[in-house]
């Protein structure tokens, strides 16, 4: 929405005093434990910094590294991944997959110059509202110390667009669906045969 709110915002919206860095952190939570822990923190009125914005997944096993990279690419300063404690996954064992993806992703983002501290894994059961709140506070402070990540915006370049339709009218052909791209070297692949 970057390009959509040119009008000056109401002053009330400016909460971070000029100069102070308020990190924005995307948090992925598991529907069964950490998201409920967040709910619990709320019901118990536990206070934590407002820097984390949570996304609910059904399970930490749903966590696709794409989501994490996307968050950075969209300007997030850090990503918090949370799930049920190892051995207590609502789906029996999926949080182990999350753990492995997390560890591999840690190595890759480091190779891309992103501090490991910007990708954190926190286990929190549905009963651990306070724990989650504390972890969020901790992560926020650590990221504040790391400073902004500020990954550049992807496509601010104005592509000089070109009307395919116009071009097509000029060549005057019909417009049915695309020709099926050949499935490659194996036309008698059962899947092809099945068609």
């Amino acid at each position: 929405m970057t390009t959509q709110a040119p009008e000056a915002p109401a002053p009330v919206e400016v909460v971070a005093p000029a100069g102070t860095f308020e990190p924005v952190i995307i948090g992925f939570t598991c529907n069964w434990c950490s998201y409920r822990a967040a709910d619990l923190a709320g019901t118990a009125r536990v206070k934590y910094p407002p820097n984390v914005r949570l996304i609910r997944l059904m399970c930490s096993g749903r966590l696709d590294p794409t989501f994490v990279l996307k968050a950075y690419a969209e300007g997030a300063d850090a990503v918090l991944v949370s799930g049920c404690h190892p051995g207590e996954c609502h789906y029996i064992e999926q949080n182990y997959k999350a753990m492995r993806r997390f560890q591999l992703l840690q190595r890759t983002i480091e190779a891309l110059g992103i501090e490991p501290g910007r990708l954190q894994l926190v286990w929190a059961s549905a009963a651990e509202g306070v724990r989650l709140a504390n972890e969020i506070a901790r992560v926020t402070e650590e990221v504040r110390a790391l400073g902004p990540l500020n990954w550049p915006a992807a496509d601010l370049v104005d592509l000089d667009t070109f009307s395919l339709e116009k071009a097509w009218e000029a060549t005057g052909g019909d417009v049915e669906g695309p020709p099926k791209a050949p499935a490659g070297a194996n036309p008698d692949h059962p899947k092809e045969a099945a068609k």
Partner: protein
Amino acid sequence: MSPTARSKPAAKPAAKPTAKPAAKPAAKPTAKPAAKPKLAIFGAASCGGCDIAIVNIHEHILEVAAAFDIVLWPTVMDGKYSDIEAMEDGEITITLVSGSMRTDETVHLSKLLRRKSKFMVAFGSCASEGCIPGLANLTPRKEILDTAFSTSSTDNPDGIRPVWEFEAPEGILHLPEFEPMLRTLDQVVDVDYTIPGCPPESEQIWAALQAVVAALKGTGPLPPKGSILGAGESTVCDECARKRDVKKIDRFVRIQQVAAFDPEICLLEQGLPCNGPATRNGCGALCPSVSAPCIGCYGAAEGVVDYGARLMSAYASVIEATKPEEIDKILDGIPDPAGQFYRFSLAGSLLRGSRSAWQSDGE
């Protein structure tokens, strides 16, 4: 524009029906323009392999020559930029750009050709996702130049570096500037079609060209904007003859560490990090068929946002370990994650490169 318009999935709308331009009635043959459609083939930062792959369609090249009036193809014939500049906008029917956007010259010419062309095709891995040159995005420009101009093989005692503007007696010379970061074609201009591969397989090229020719003749349908031509929608495993079982990986090995691999069984199952599961099919699984792991030159499968992320997720998911230290031990088998997962797709990936590359801001 909304952020989604910026997001990669938006950029590859291929599979979605609504991508099709509103249906138009087939125009009568008489409506066809008399002159032969014009074809331009431009190699930006590329190794030339793409051009060879095109020539490699053998005698079909003659049919291409017959079907098109080739206005630019520096590799095989003389051509002047000025001729292109002189053309009407949209005069060129179709332009194939191979190679990536590495200098401001290539950027400039790509924009020029875009303006002059009806259809712009990102041809090959470099143009579509950055390819091997894209790995330069792991390093700041300065370091790249330092390395290039001060290696032992370089005789450069004064440590001279290239300048982009040079005052010669004849006047100021402008040299193509090596840009801070390498970009893919679609990060610079609007791209209509993409033909993946490093290089694209010749028969696939021919199939794609045929489709275009047919479309131009009005005898075939026009592929919707954003289509990936000359490749499948699945991944290499789809074409791989190796026997596959459920995956349980307790180690990753590098190809030189193992004397011989079982010729029948999936390489990944033998611990060799094969990118086949995540790489778009179309090559005919050439590498795995000779016991070399797929390295991913055909890029991501249909609708995938970030090739490396998908592959990481897949590998990590099938690792046989539950303790952090065990997991780490196995992951040590992949010493260069960035290279393993982004060998071809780094420049086209969500993050495009390393932080140091863009933070150095050109210096």
